């Protein structure tokens, strides 16, 4: 449901609630009672659920994540003109949906993954408003990056399963698939955002070719 439609519904419900506040005597009639039930029970709960669902969906967007000042360098890192930058390569080649780039890689693809991601977001807000924010380059993941998030898309893909480097050592692929060897470990795909060195790299100007 689009945001504008929800806002219109909320304003309509608020208007009806206002009528009940100003004219409570209308509930003396059967029609008024039905109206009160709709306005003070059904509509507010529906609006609340629709609004929260809308906010949940919006919180998955890249723009939402980058609306925090501290995340700006991470947004910039998506535009690095270097295929070795893992996040940039995924974003620019649409290996992840460009409008949900952060969420796609940083959600947990296990049960309650989205819920855990939102709880993590609450922790970010807590640090942002009540603690001293770290520098962008000092931000660390809450826990080591789990290969499960990569394998959600790459498992079974030809480039992953038959890639020369992945198969150079017969132990590599099984170790990756069981999360014993991290995809982002040193010597593999370890250049991810690298926000500390962004001033030294060339950026890709999308749509300026």
């Amino acid at each position, binding site marked *: 449901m689009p945001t504008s439609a929800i806002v219109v519904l909320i304003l309509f419900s608020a208007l009806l609630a206002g009528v*009940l506040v100003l004219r409570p005597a209308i509930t003396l009639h059967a029609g008024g009672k039905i109206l009160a039930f709709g*306005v003070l029970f059904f509509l507010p*709960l529906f609006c609340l659920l629709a609004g929260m669902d809308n*906010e949940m969906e919006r919180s998955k967007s890249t723009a939402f994540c980058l609306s925090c000042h501290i995340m700006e360098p991470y947004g910039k890192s998506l535009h690095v003109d270097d295929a070795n930058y893992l996040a940039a390569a995924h974003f620019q080649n649409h290996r992840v949906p460009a409008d949900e780039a952060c969420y796609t890689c940083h959600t947990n693809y296990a049960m309650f993954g989205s819920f855990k991601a939102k709880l993590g977001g609450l922790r970010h807000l807590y640090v942002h408003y009540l603690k001293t924010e770290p520098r962008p380059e000092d931000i660390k993941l809450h826990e080591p990056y789990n290969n499960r998030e990569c394998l959600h898309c790459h498992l079974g893909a030809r480039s992953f399963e038959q890639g020369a480097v992945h198969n150079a050592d017969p132990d590599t692929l099984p170790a990756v698939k069981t999360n014993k060897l991290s995809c982002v470990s040193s010597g593999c795909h370890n250049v991810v955002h690298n926000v500390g060195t962004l001033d030294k790299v060339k950026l890709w100007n999308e749509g300026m070719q």
Partner: protein
Amino acid sequence: MKRPWHFQRKLQTSGMLVLLGLSVEAVCLLWSRPIAFVILASVGGLLVVAGVLLFLYSLAFVDSHPEVSKTAPSPS
């Protein structure tokens, strides 16, 4: 036991809570910032749920026709 009077008063309070909650919700939906999500879920949600619960409480425990209750003869 149903208590006589102030059903309409409770309805007004419930309506005010819902009205405030919905207003907070509308502002949060138009204000596209991460903190808006928290305010919508906490402040907006709390006000709306409080309004709805007060309305349900009024329906169940508050007499909506006080003048009838006051004038009606006792069963005994």
